[in-house]
């Protein structure tokens, strides 16, 4: 087990994340330009979508695939509900709803790092997990807003929520569209066409991931510093928020791992599904929440997800959940 942790911690993508975080903590001026950060993130979404589509086209779409997708969808609906019930005891309803939505959704880069972890161990994984990821991105947004509205009927009415706009923004946010689109294109691509694209999507993948995680390390470390500074503004102590940022992924991972093992998923798929459960969104959901729930404080939910949960999942979560699902499957 220790070797899994160690080999994860010395994987170059992780080390580049560390490098970025260290640079930011030391106040180095190392910086990835914003548009490059977005480019790297678009690249990763496109590449993982295309990879998933290729893998999907290689194995027939059968009932078990549909079952897995259905289960993933259920998780995306259930997780934010119980998360909201727990968190709202400690924070204002708007913040609780935004946190619930954040943790009910997923982080594509955490997933992508998981696939690169599995690839480096030589453990196979199935393409339909990418579809599961795309499916799990949006529902939490809707659920989060409904929960808030139920809890705070008056305020919500006053705002006059535009449900059509929210629905559209949830389902059509850029990352969902790009992953889904690339997945379908990879699925329908002829083998010769796919072969022309794989040097881009496959060979560069780990290198681009390294560069993106370098950026994420810088951003996460800065956000952590800012969080300490403006800690007083939030209505909760940073300590409580940090606790939640570690506890929520652990709880979600445990539940998802049980489901994965109960479904009898193979090793790689079990880890990836667990990782989807454990990970929290830091792009799609915060973007949607700023529009639909502006009264929630982004320094709370975005910082928890980006500065605490994301590094935790990357550094400790991946090998931990791997070990846990293996152990569960063995018992």
């Amino acid at each position, binding site marked *: 087990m220790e070797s899994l942790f160690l080999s994860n911690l010395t994987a170059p993508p992780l080390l580049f994340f560390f490098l970025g975080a260290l640079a930011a903590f030391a106040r180095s001026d190392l*910086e990835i330009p*914003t548009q490059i*950060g*977005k480019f790297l*993130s678009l690249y990763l979404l496109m590449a993982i979508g295309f990879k998933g589509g290729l893998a999907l086209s290689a194995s027939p779409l059968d009932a078990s695939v549909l079952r897995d997708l259905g289960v993933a969808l259920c998780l995306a609906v259930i997780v934010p509900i119980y998360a909201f019930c727990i968190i709202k005891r400690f924070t204002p309803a708007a913040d609780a709803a935004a946190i619930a939505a954040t943790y009910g959704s997923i982080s594509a880069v955490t997933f992508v790092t998981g696939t690169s972890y599995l690839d480096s161990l030589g453990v196979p994984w199935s393409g339909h997990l990418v579809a599961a990821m795309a499916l799990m991105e949006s529902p939490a947004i809707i659920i989060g807003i409904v929960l808030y509205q139920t809890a705070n009927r008056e305020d919500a009415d006053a705002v006059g929520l535009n449900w059509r706009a929210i629905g559209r923004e949830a389902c059509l946010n850029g990352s969902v569209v790009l992953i889904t689109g690339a997945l379908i294109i990879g699925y329908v691509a002829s083998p010769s066409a796919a072969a022309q694209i794989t040097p881009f999507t496959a060979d560069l993948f780990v290198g681009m991931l390294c560069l993106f995680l370098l950026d994420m390390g*810088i*951003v996460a470390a*800065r*956000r952590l510093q*800012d969080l300490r*500074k*403006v800690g007083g*503004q939030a209505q909760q102590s940073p300590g409580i928020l940090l606790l939640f940022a570690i506890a929520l992924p652990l709880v979600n991972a445990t539940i998802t791992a049980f489901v994965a093992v109960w479904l009898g998923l193979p090793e790689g798929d079990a880890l990836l599904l667990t990782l989807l459960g454990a990970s929290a969104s*830091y*792009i799609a959901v*915060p*973007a949607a929440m*700023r*529009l639909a729930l*502006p*009264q929630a*404080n*982004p*320094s709370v939910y*975005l910082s928890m997800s*980006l500065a605490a949960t994301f590094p935790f999942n990357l550094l400790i979560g991946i090998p931990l959940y791997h070990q846990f699902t293996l152990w569960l499957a063995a018992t």
Partner: protein
Amino acid sequence: MKPCKRIEIVVEEALTRRLEELLEAVGAPGYTMLPRASGNGDRGVRRGDDPTGTFTNCVFIIACDDEATITAIIEGVRPLLQRSGGICLVSDAMWVRH
């Protein structure tokens, strides 16, 4: 040249489309938008560096010489600023007519 008001609004980039829709709705004669600004205010630092755009601002500049439209812009932007932060400055300027 004729006198007008120069309205300058700073909001987070996520609200760009909302503000554009507002300006169109109230009949603003035009606007210019500068993206990717960073900033600092009551709600803490917005570094303009994260991939979400939540911590990135943008600056709208609107030249307007119609009293009613000016009021409509200001009143329309106020709730936006209340909920999501930002500032709105109004100053006098001369508009070079071409």
